[in-house]
């Protein structure tokens, strides 16, 4: 699904990520961890083509992103569900429209997907908040809405950047359950998180590999996690 070969990235200064090689198999469940500023978000951005590696090769669905133009990358992104660390909503649109945004930009008739949308909102427990604007939502509601938006196009891959960033333990457990459920449905899941407790609790529910960024490189974390 997603394949990195000796990938390196730098924002212009020194290299932030070096020599990263990893392959996310279909249906796998990965955590990406590391201290704040280690480059977790950066690595995810590389994975959905928001950044291009400064060295090495990155393949998405067997396609090298370097050869693609902006519009082709956009098409690629429709096949990946991303939960952004800061959610990235359009504040002037109600929650339901924000969740439906990927449908709108891909030219699909939202009205025809109404049942799908309602089902998804119910699944993340936001049915009665459908008309609220993003600024009116609580942290947990925002995270669930972001997850719903990531799923509306039925992607095969889900990349979640700190999906439990600013929610309490109970809510983070609930979000984790949603992601585990998706993985059981066959989706490939990659979660960036520095919440070790969450990762430990996940490992009791699903076969998850934990990748850690340390000293610019990616390592497989040991059994202690």
């Amino acid at each position: 699904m997603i394949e990195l070969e000796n990938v390196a990235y730098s924002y212009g200064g020194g290299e932030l990520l070096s020599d990263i090689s990893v392959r996310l198999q279909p249906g796998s469940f990965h955590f990406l961890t590391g201290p704040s500023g280690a480059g977790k978000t950066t690595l995810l951005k590389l994975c959905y083509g928001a950044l291009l590696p400064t060295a090495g090769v990155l393949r998405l669905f067997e396609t090298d992103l370097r050869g693609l133009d902006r519009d082709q990358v956009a098409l690629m992104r429709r096949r990946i569900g991303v939960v952004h660390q800061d959610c990235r909503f359009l504040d002037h649109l109600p929650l339901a429209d924000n969740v439906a945004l990927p449908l709108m930009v891909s030219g699909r008739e939202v009205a025809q997907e109404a049942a799908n949308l309602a089902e998804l909102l119910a699944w993340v427990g936001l049915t009665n908040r459908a008309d609220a604007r993003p600024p009116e939502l609580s942290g947990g509601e925002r995270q669930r809405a972001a997850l719903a938006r990531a799923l509306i196009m039925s992607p095969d891959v889900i990349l979640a950047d700190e999906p439990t960033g600013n929610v309490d333990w109970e809510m983070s457990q609930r979000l984790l359950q949603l992601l585990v459920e998706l993985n059981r449905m066959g989706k490939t899941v990659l979660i960036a998180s520095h919440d070790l407790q969450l990762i430990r609790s996940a490992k009791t529910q699903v076969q998850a590999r934990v990748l850690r960024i340390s000293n610019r490189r990616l390592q497989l974390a040991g059994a202690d996690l």
Partner: protein
Amino acid sequence: MWVAVKGWLASDGQADRVVPPTGFTANLTVFASAAMAFLAVFALALSLAAGRLADRWAEELARSATLRISAPAEQMATQTEAALRVLRQTPGVASARALSQEEQAALLAPWFGAELPLDQLPVPQLIEVIETAQGYDTAGLRLRLSAEVPGAVLDDHTRWRRPLVEAADSLRRLGLLSILLITGAMAAMITLAANAALAANGQVIEVLRLVGGQDRFIARAFVRRFTLRALIGGCVGMALGVLGMALLPQSADQGGFLTGLSFQGAGWLFPLAIPALGAAVAFAATRYAAGRVLKGLS
């Protein structure tokens, strides 16, 4: 065509909503488009009226000058002969022809009735002179005539209109130039407004890209918006301009330039092209601006 336009208007209500509405700048765009359309109506009217005037005057210019020969009856024939000879030798005279008795009678009939015994009255003989495009040297001709045909009077009263025709022609060109300038100003204004809108919505554009929006989709949201605003403004401005034209005092007489400024006949249909032109300009300008900005953003 209509189906395509309707589809574009309807299905992209969706695309339109993803960009936040901006009441104030939207109103400014509509207002500026209306003002441009209003001005364009007058520039168009000016140009059309100047054109009509130029045509009419040019036509009158092309008509003959008149040579009048007043001489005692017994000399009339010889002087007419002499005058015709002089005229034929004058460069710039295309043709010269003495009017027949019947023609002269017809000219006088409105004043004196049809039964005028022309042959018994000392009516001057008229010679119709038609000049070439270059025209002849009036002063020189007068000099020769006074020497060789003492009874001849050259009446070239239409010649003084030549500079007027040129003025009317320039006025028509100025009118057309104004329309071009208004179109250019409109394009510049829409480009500026679209640039501002695109810059102000950088965050929105980024989010749209993150969820898989292609440039085409993002541009369309802006293009549609500015095209519609220009169309609405153009219609309002054009309607007001045409109303202003319709309220101008009409004068049926061949009359002055001012009273003839209004549109005539099918000319009333020309202003309909103004909102369409405005919308087309807005469409192209926003497309251009969006293309540039979207290429610039990462």
